[in-house]
């Protein structure tokens, strides 16, 4: 399986996914006008990964901003992770938010309420 490495841009986040270590990172801003296109490769890769997943899968979500169009795609990513978690891999999603950013903490809690995967809310210092 191939790694995914997508560089960040002013409207899209860095995405790194390594199927051989079971590590996924999404970091930066996610505010594209069309997020379905942007997230497609990751969603496909997670689907393929589910067939041959690692015993542990670690996910770091470090978003600064995301739009509502991305929020649906992020939910789709988490739904794939939910399937992977109920299969052969223990998935943990680390949701990072900057101190004082209640909106980002709440957004993480919204996903946590919908998705049946262990979430860790991690507060970080403001940049």
């Amino acid at each position, binding site marked *: 399986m191939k790694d995914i490495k997508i560089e960040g841009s*002013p*409207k899209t986040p860095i995405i790194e996914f390594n199927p051989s270590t079971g590590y996924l990172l999404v970091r930066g801003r996610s*505010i594209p*006008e*069309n*997020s*379905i296109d942007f997230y497609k490769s990751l969603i496909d890769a997670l689907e393929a990964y589910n067939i041959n997943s690692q015993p542990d899968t670690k996910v770091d979500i470090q978003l*600064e*901003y995301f*739009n*509502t*169009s991305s*929020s*649906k795609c992020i*939910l789709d990513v988490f739904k794939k992770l939910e399937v992977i978690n109920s299969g052969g891999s223990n998935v943990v999603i680390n949701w990072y938010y*900057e101190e*004082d*950013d*209640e*909106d*980002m903490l*709440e957004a993480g809690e*919204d996903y946590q*309420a*919908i998705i049946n995967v262990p979430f860790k809310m991690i507060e970080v210092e*403001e940049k």
Partner: protein
Amino acid sequence: MEKGNIMLSFKGEVTSDLLTSILQIMESKMETLDESPKIKKKVYNILVECLQNLYHHIDEDDVSTIIKENSALFMIKKEDGEYSIMTGNFITKDNVDSLKHRLDKINQMDKDELKDYYKEVLNNGEMSAKGGGGLGMIDIARKSGKKLEYHFDKVDDYHYFFSLNIKVAQ
């Protein structure tokens, strides 16, 4: 438009490049004003949703071409420490009732009800081809912490002008 400290205003066609520029300008302006990261993020987030609403709305086939060319108005101002974001765009008569119904529904909800409604639409709502999916207004209402002020003005037998005024709670 109302007086006050207008930070940026725009009238015309909304393109993807324009959105990028407006967001960059506003981000550097807020940097200069030394806003708290919390307010900066809220305003930025609401801006993204408003502008993308305008952007997605503009290519609707049923709004006539003549109207489309001058299709959107946008303004952001800061007065007595409070940000307000105003948008305006043309919509067809057929869409007025459903939009009004949606806004009224959102305005009747308190913070917790909005949170539940957001989760419901996020989880069950269908994603539109443009990627909207009806979450935008709910998200704007949640982040602004205030009721959405809106107005519909009749333009002709087929079109209305829809204006939205969003205030950002401090």
